């Protein structure tokens, strides 16, 4: 009778953490170094791409926690991302009249607005958790889809907060006087001779937030809450009889997951510079789902890889599709580069899942195993 349950494949913490750690050190060091060096070499296209990917990664880790660890399917993740994005914008924004419309704002210091926006997203998750507690599997998934549609409706009908369809400008983040924007007009921040614009500065913010989000998730799932969440996922009844307050833990999972979404939303808002409601639609929720499944359920590293894949691939294909042969000239008939990019994305998604249903994390494990065996 568990028909309506979403069976989720189980992924566990590595059996022997010590061995992977020794292997991981050079890998982590290399990754950190490469990522830290990026703003010195790549242009704005790549940096913007990266910012969106970091924002997506943070939110995806949250959905991964909810789905991969706690076994709760949510198609409403975009809603919580929107709460974070608009929450930050409203809290840090100033009350002003733009063109013909008036916009409110609390004008809080951006860092405080960021923290409050994340808490606000958590609150939204908490408010939804009574619904989540009653429902399971696909029912929960599609019920949470209602959040996205309701969210679109609210965003459109609350112009004082959201700016309506035209969206509103996102105030830049400043921490201790350092602004994550282009700086005052006429000034230029040079680091080792490289000018640091908004994108360069935000890159480090995105990198740091993603790293912290990853570590938080890693510690969480290795400890007591993670064990309890996975027990809830495997069997709610068993978990309850082993002492886990199931309803409360499902609520916690929603809370933490939506806070991740909110944080991702703030990053996304900063990356955009201006947010509009249509961004946070059904397609965005679906994309998050694709990220965590592609990355491998239950793995935070996988979610990050999935987020980078989903956030970058279509835009990369679009950028380089004109190098590919057999495509139509602009204005002509036939398959345009953009269409080819969309095909490429869909085919990559299908092939990846056919080859390795465990996603990138599964692929990684496979490669790691082979590596070990060959030694």
């Amino acid at each position, binding site marked *: 009778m568990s028909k309506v349950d979403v069976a989720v494949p189980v992924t566990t913490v590595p059996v022997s953490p010590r061995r992977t750690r020794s292997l991981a050190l050079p890998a982590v060091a290399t990754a950190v170094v490469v990522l830290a060096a990026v703003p010195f070499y790549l*242009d704005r296209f790549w940096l913007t791409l990266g910012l969106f990917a970091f924002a997506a990664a943070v939110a995806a880790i949250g959905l991964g926690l909810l789905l991969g660890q706690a076994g709760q399917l949510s198609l409403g993740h975009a809603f919580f991302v929107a709460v974070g994005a608009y929450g930050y914008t409203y809290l840090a924004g100033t009350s002003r009249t733009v063109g013909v419309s008036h916009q409110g704002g609390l004008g809080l210091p951006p860092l405080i607005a960021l923290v409050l926006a994340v808490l606000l997203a958590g609150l939204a998750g908490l408010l939804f958790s009574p619904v989540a507690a009653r429902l399971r599997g696909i029912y929960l998934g599609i019920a949470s889809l209602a959040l996205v549609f309701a969210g679109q409706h609210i965003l459109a009908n609350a112009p004082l907060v959201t700016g309506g369809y035209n969206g509103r400008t996102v105030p830049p983040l400043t921490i201790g006087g350092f602004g994550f924007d282009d700086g005052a007009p006429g000034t230029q921040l040079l680091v080792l001779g490289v000018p640091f614009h908004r994108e360069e500065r935000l890159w480090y913010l995105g990198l740091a937030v993603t790293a912290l989000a990853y570590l938080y998730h890693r510690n969480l799932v290795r400890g007591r809450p993670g064990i309890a969440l996975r027990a809830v996922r495997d069997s709610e009844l068993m978990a309850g009889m082993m002492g886990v307050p199931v309803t409360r833990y499902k609520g916690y999972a929603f809370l933490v997951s939506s806070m991740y979404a909110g944080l991702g939303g703030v990053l996304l808002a900063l990356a955009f510079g201006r947010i509009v409601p249509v961004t946070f639609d059904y397609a965005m929720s679906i994309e998050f789902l694709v990220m965590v499944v592609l990355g491998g359920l239950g793995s935070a590293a996988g979610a990050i890889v999935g987020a980078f894949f989903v956030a970058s691939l279509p835009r990369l294909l679009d950028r380089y599709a004109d190098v590919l042969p057999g495509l139509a000239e602009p204005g002509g008939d036939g398959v345009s580069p953009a269409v080819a990019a969309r095909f490429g994305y869909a085919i990559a998604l299908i092939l990846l899942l056919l080859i390795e249903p465990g996603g990138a994390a599964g692929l990684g494990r496979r490669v790691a195993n082979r590596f070990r065996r060959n030694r």
Partner: protein
Amino acid sequence: MTKRRAVLAIALVAVFGAAGCSTKVVDASSSPSAGKLATGPGVTDTTITLGVLTDRTGPYAGLGKAVEQGRTLFWDDRNAKGGVCGRKVQFVLKDHGYNPQNAVTAYASIKDNVLALHELLGSPEIAALLDSIQSDQMLTGALSWSSSLLSNPYVVISGTTYDVEMINAVDWLVKNKGLTKGDKIGHIFHEGDYGENGDAGVVAAAKEYGLELLPYKIKPTTADLTAQVTALKSAGAKAILLTVAPAQTASAVGVAAASGYAVPFVANAPSFSTALLATAAKPALEKQLYVATSIAPFSATAPGAAQVRDAFVAKYSDAIKIQYALFGYAQAQIMAGILDTACKNNDLTRAGLLKAFQSQSHVDTNGLIAPLDFSKPGGIPARQTYILKPDSAAAGGLTQVQDLFAAPLAQSYTPSK
């Protein structure tokens, strides 16, 4: 632990040491070459590069393509005749698929390499980029006619805004379809900037003429307008205005015709598409629908329009013939005029472009678009519209019913809430 830190430290030093070789390092000693002509990004000695952010895969792919054909027609010809300022004008085109996030990434990827955006299609995409456009001083040819964009001085709106189109539409109904004070009219419109801007015009006009307005807001995805038309019919509305998508126009008019509800419909330009005349709704549309627009129909009879049309048909014999092809051509004309003026001023920079743009007080596009005046920042650039009528016999599917005119209210109207 210490080993780990050491590894990190060494690696970091290696990277930042190497940053000195980065191509992004700015050389403080170099200064812009002193010459007669000041140039901005995207301008070389032989070329001027402009950006195009359009939709090739999303819902407006067809429209985007028609505009692109018109634009290509103009610039191919112009470049063959020497281009602008002795430079060929070329384009970097990016598809955003009607997704704002894609538009933002695409914009970031081209903004340092282009002088201006020749075209930016889509209201949500424009909205998402409004601030960047302003801070980058990026003159942008918007493919949207919402008056909410007027507050940004860098946005070029080529034509009347949706609200003015609707004011003219109501005026025309009053004068030609016997609407009188106290009559009910309906307005079905999209949620979003487009629909709401149209609604602002209808609201203003209804107030001016003492008409009772019944507004119905719909989603861009709504396919069947039976419910709205039925409600308007039972309320006794004497005319219906539409600020919707083409398929919705067909549904609304079709439903009305089928139930014998023979009131006139007047639609905004984007509410109609030639493709509708291939559907079952054709007879109803030809009977009951009118279109208020500042863009001349493809079948326009003015000599200038006819010339462009013939050139278009010669170049793209298989292409769909819609007025947006002419619009693309006209928009290119407007942009060329701005570039020419900037060249004359010896200032092909972004600031120079803005100055040139704001000096365009009488822009004539051979009647392709109503006369334009860009010299009043924040003002509506054009206030005259045509009233057109679907006609499957005409090329492009529309014929003229009423030549360019502007209602008294349209002359004095300023957008506000």
